[in-house]
């Protein structure tokens, strides 16, 4: 199609001469009104409880600048050069030390450094998924993972969770149902610790049980653990990879414990998979950023990085407390999760509300959140929303929850006005599984 076709009257255009050339898998890649509404979140007047941006201001700048200076002084030419597709051995050694904190033992040979763990997620999906293959994922699941899975034309089958994480019996039933339907299940994608977006943590007993279920059904486990070290009260159970080596690919990241700007994450994979991951990594980017790897290695070698993680914990704990107490004060009739770590609270609204539909009202009230439907591949989560407490400070969080309360009340009032006209006002009201409902929080004040 030419950019400007001639017609009898003049010319026509679609502003995209390649519109008919795109691959089928790109069907979902389009600008949406919801995405456009999020543009206001960048304005300082708007309280954004939407994004999961780490509070990098809690990282003393001198720690970073001194690391960068030493890298340039001692290893400049190497740090500025291409590197290995697997990542530098020095950083991989350091990564082993970090993973040991969560009970993981591995070989430096089995670590593959990637451009954020998001790229590891992409590479693993590329390695395993043919169009139509099934990926099991919690309900809800990480929005960034769902995007990757869609891009490889996977079918995402959500599995129910509760306040203790993924429900083993629900997993068994899902596997049975999918197998009976002749589906090919490739892996279980899970965020067992301080789940994004649900905020809950899988218990140790369930970790054992879920690994056993997956082992029995030849299902690989993709364990995504960016938040594990950011606990508030008590350390979480050890990683699933600490229990099982051959059946688990583990994804880690420096984005939450150091800084996302470096874009460094990693995968720890069984030997055979690791070989393919390295080749896929080289194919995608040639190599992860050498400079970022050198900088992080230097930071880990010369600074009190564990103390810094402690500092992050303190910041996030205080912000979580502010969010929970504010929810208790303003929305006591709602239900939400109580995270012991990580960045997120998962809020359940009355069943008549649709958090995505409410977004224009939220823009007017100068508050932003992430609608629940973003975390489902099947349209679920309409009356849910994710609230992030990682970036705004305590006072801003309290302001945000006050504004959110106004949004919710305004929406309820509007729906009540039209309630007598029949059950049409919010379209289809989803059936909410009790498993989505978490216990009301204890008195968090």
């Amino acid at each position, binding site marked *: 199609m030419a950019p400007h076709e001639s017609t009898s009257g003049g*010319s*026509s255009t*679609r502003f995209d001469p390649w519109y008919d050339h795109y691959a089928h898998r790109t069907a979902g890649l389009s600008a949406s009104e919801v995405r456009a509404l999020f543009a206001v979140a960048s304005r300082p007047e708007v309280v954004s409880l939407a994004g999961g941006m780490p509070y990098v201001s809690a990282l003393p700048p001198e720690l970073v600048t001194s690391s960068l200076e030493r890298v340039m002084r001692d290893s400049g030419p190497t740090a500025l050069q291409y590197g290995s597709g697997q990542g530098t051995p020095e950083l991989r050694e350091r990564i082993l030390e970090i993973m040991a904190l969560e009970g993981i033992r591995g070989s430096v040979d089995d670590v593959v450094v990637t451009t954020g763990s998001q790229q590891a997620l992409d590479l693993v999906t590329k390695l395993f998924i043919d169009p139509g293959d099934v990926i099991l994922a919690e309900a809800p699941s990480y929005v960034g993972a769902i995007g990757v899975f869609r891009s490889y034309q996977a079918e995402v089958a959500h599995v129910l969770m509760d306040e203790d994480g993924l429900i083993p019996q629900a997993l068994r039933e899902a596997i049975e149902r999918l197998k009976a339907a002749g589906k090919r299940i490739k892996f279980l994608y899970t965020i067992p610790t301080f789940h994004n977006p649900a905020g809950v943590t899988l218990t140790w007993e369930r970790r054992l049980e879920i690994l056993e279920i997956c082992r029995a059904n030849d299902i690989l486990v993709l364990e995504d653990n960016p938040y594990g070290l950011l606990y508030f009260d008590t350390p979480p159970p050890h990683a699933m990879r600490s229990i099982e080596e051959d059946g688990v690919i583990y994804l880690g990241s420096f984005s939450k414990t150091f800084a996302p700007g470096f874009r460094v994450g990693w995968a720890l994979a069984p030997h055979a998979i690791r070989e393919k991951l390295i080749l896929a990594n080289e194919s995608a980017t040639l190599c992860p950023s050498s400079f970022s790897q050198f900088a992080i290695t230097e930071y880990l070698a010369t600074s009190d990085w564990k103390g810094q993680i402690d500092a992050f914990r303190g910041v996030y704990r205080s912000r979580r407390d502010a969010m929970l107490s504010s929810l208790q004060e303003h929305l006591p009739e709602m239900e939400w999760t109580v995270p012991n770590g990580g960045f997120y609270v998962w809020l359940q609204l009355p069943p008549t509300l649709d958090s995505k539909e409410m977004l224009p009202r939220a823009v007017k009230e100068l508050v932003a959140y992430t609608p629940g439907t973003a975390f489902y591949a099947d349209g679920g989560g309409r009356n849910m929303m994710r609230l992030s407490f990682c970036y705004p400070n305590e006072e801003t969080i309290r302001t945000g929850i006050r504004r959110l309360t106004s949004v919710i009340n305004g929406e309820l009032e*509007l729906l009540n006005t039209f309630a007598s006209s029949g059950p049409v006002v919010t379209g289809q009201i989803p059936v909410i599984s009790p498993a989505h409902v978490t216990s009301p929080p204890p008195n968090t004040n």
Partner: protein
Amino acid sequence: MDEFTPRTVLILAGGISHERDVSLRSGRRIADSLRAQGISVELRDPDATLFAYLEASQPDVVWPALHGAGGEDGSLRGLLDFVNVPFVGSRAAASRLAWDKPTAKALVDRAGVTTPRAIALSRDTFRDLGAVNVLDRISAELSGPVVVKPAQGGSAQGVTIVDDPEDLASAMVHAYRYWDVALVEQKIVGTEISVCVIDTGDGPVALAPVEIEPISGFYSFEARYNAGETRFYTPARVSDEVAARASEMAIAAHSTLGLRHISRVDIMVDGAGTPFFLEASVMPGLTETSLFPRALEVAGHDVGWAYLALCQAAVRESRA
């Protein structure tokens, strides 16, 4: 280049509105086009520092490329007038009239311009009189498909085409999420066209009507801002007579509302060839998928040249 050619242009884009993203896109496009003409351009998201900045930098012209409330409702334009800064586009009072769709419809109707039958209703009306009663009355009076839209706003945000009266309540709720007054308008079935009007000092000129054919059938937000989702025909595939009537309608609306420099008038042409005025935009989208730059190109104008001419007109008028 002449004595009215600005050396510096400040483009205001972004703001806090539902159309912030569209505004940012428009602003960047205007900036690119003017820079290609050799003009020094500053792009700025208006905030509490704006007036201090204006005082310090003293740009020759401001282009408020803000869509949505704040940008198109006349508020900012009124303030620019107060501080005697030349700016591109309609003045505050005219912006306010055009921005409010029921007001604009009433004014052009009074001037003899055909516009679909409609009713504007605040959400309080439904609360006070009972939603069922009001919905029933609307359905009885506006038979057939209707279009429900927020009385203020753009980019098809909050707009629903209602074919079944059962869906009217849902459409009203959707519109009220954007604005407290909604317009319910008889849907005209036919050809959707837009006429862009430009006035660089010699009087308003209507560019050739652009026909809009969204693939989905509805010129939604997604159809507007995802390249490829809509096909545009320039000039529209209508008879010369209909095209001329649509152009006359656009000029009449532009003049009746007192608009200045630039506007886009949206029109539906029914099966009998009668054009109906829908709304006028005082800050039409100027993004990479917008109608205005497309209409300029097809008319043989260089977009950058046209934008510069608008800036020159603003300077010239400020010195008159």
